[in-house]
């Protein structure tokens, strides 16, 4: 079916993009003035040791050759060593990545569900106070950046109204589950450890809400306007006129075409989610890869920085492909090629 070739094309394109991205990152990392070998060993290491390391790191070879060594390493899983943690970057990534993914996935789900709910609500009660309230909320929701929301939550829930935890992933004293997927909530469920599950879940709520706020309201507005546009279309009047019950018309025939615009934008919104995670993780002390990345950036830990960017690039690409597939599933015109004659 055409869907298969569509996926294949996207996949090949993604590969190309990732390779290009790696080149760009490599160039950026090597643009830095300074000597990576010296930085790795510190100012007091003897010169000959630094020279040996330079040769090992292939710093004396021309740039394209350096790139190839680096890429080969990446494929083997060797992202180099972190200046800060002094261990292989891969180890660091394996430790911190699941935390960020758990947060991002939860925030993404929140965003999707509530955006559709609010959008449908606003469209159904168009021009009433419900619609107006949602519209005003969305102006504020979009204007409040994730890190500002995070700080406000810190203030509210950390000090004035401590009903939700604000720091870290798990309360001190709570035994964490065995690491299966790295997602605390999932792992606790698998183990049947319900107290841990509930605790981990509660810790996720505030950061996830802060992250999802902007995208949520933006998608809600798009859902609403898409539904309002479609509400006046002839095919809805026709379907109603043929006797199909109102509920079915609303929730099947109106919803599906309206969701196309919303889902299309979810890829971009997920990207903002990932970006904003950088700051939100800092604020909530969430031990994820974004926080790791920030510290790497502040310490000019080049290998770590490059690795973090590649990881995010890949994640984003995968999400984009998923979003494209969902849109293709929703809209047959995309997956089956262009129309015949009009």
């Amino acid at each position, binding site marked *: 079916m055409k869907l298969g070739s569509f996926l294949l094309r996207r996949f090949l*394109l993604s590969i*190309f*993009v*990732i390779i*290009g*991205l790696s080149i*760009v*990152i490599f160039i*950026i*990392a090597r*643009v*830095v003035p300074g000597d990576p070998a010296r930085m790795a060993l510190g100012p007091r290491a003897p010169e000959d040791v630094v020279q040996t390391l330079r040769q090992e790191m292939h710093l004396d070879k021309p740039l394209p050759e350096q790139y190839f060594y680096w890429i080969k390493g990446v494929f083997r899983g060797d992202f180099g060593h972190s200046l800060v943690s002094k261990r292989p970057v891969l180890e660091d990534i394996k430790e911190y990545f699941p935390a960020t993914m758990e947060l991002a996935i939860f925030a993404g789900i929140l965003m999707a569900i509530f955006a559709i709910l609010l959008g449908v609500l606003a469209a159904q009660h168009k021009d009433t106070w419900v619609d107006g309230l949602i519209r005003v909320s969305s*102006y*504020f929701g*979009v*204007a*409040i*950046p994730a*890190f*500002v929301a995070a*700080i*406000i939550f*810190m*203030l509210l829930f*950390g*000090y*004035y109204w401590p009903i939700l935890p604000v720091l870290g992933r798990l309360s001190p004293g709570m035994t964490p589950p065995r690491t299966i997927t790295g997602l605390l909530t999932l792992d606790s469920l698998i183990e049947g450890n319900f107290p841990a599950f509930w605790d981990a879940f509660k810790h996720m709520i505030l950061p996830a809400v802060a992250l999802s706020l902007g995208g949520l309201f933006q998608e809600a507005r798009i859902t609403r306007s898409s539904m309002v546009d479609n509400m006046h279309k002839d095919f809805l009047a026709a379907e109603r006129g043929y006797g199909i019950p109102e509920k079915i018309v609303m929730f099947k025939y109106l919803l599906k075409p309206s969701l196309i615009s919303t889902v299309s934008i979810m890829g971009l919104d997920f*990207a*903002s989610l*990932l*970006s*904003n995670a*950088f*700051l939100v993780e*800092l*604020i909530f002390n969430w031990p994820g890869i974004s926080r790791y*990345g*920030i510290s790497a*950036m*502040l310490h*000019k830990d*080049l290998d770590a*920085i490059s690795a*973090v*960017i590649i990881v*995010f*690039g890949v994640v*984003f*690409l995968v999400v984009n492909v998923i979003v494209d597939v969902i849109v293709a599933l929703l809209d047959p015109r995309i997956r089956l090629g262009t129309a015949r004659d009009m």
Partner: protein
Amino acid sequence: MRNLSGGQSNSPIAVNLARPKSLFWTNLGRNWYKFSRNPLSIIGLVIVLVIIISAIFAPWIAPYPEQAGPFVDFENAGQPPSLQHLCGTDNMGRDIFSRIVFAFRGALIMAIVVLALAVPPGVLLGLIAGYFQGGWIDTVIMRITDIFLAVPPLILALAVASVLEPNLMNAMIAVTLMWWPWYTRLLYGTASSIKNEYFVIAAELTGAGKFHIIFREILPNCLSPIFTKIALDVGWVILIGASLSFVGLGQQPPTPALGQMVSDGARYMPIFWWMTIFPALAIVLILLGFNLMGDGIRDMLERGMG
């Protein structure tokens, strides 16, 4: 015999080579009506004007302009909001309100510079790729654009800013690098659909050169989405700038920057809450203003000029 713009001429074939006056200004009355229909757009415009005026006239508007620079007054540190210090003082005794007003300067400068640097190349590349759609130029340009867009925006800016020395100039470079692809994408879509319109084909058939077609036929018809996007982008660039200064990249102390003020103040929560909340609210205000105004501009341009 009447020529194209309505004047009289004596020759049987009258071709008017003068460019018609920009339709935006001739329709100003109608455009303003469309913009002002939505009260929220007016609010946005007011907010934006307040911000711009504060930034320009900061030394006169700020009650303590000298405190926006190197200034220490530990006796007055940590004062809550009062009549003398509308937003209180920070940990070094500086008036927060004055610092916010001066921070607007850096924010606006960053937005102007970044957009001035990013929009022209982005638009140019997008036009070219869109016009030569299907050819190798299109593929090359759009693939490069894809690469830059493959990383979530802030991450790229952070990375670039972090490998360079932390200062305002480098922050602007970093943000510019991640901003231009959005305009390329926008123009690519618009240009590639416009190039199939009849007036473009007509121009091609009469022998118009490619340069003329791209800049005289296609570009003027793309202007509305470009301006709308620029209006909305000012807010977003400022936000990215604030995010960068939040982590310490970008404007360095003692020059005030909103993100940095939020981050510094966060350490003193909850007792000295004003140190972080007011700069945070300033960021929200900026975004709100530009978003509302940008929506109004979209309403005004989208159904008018095209």
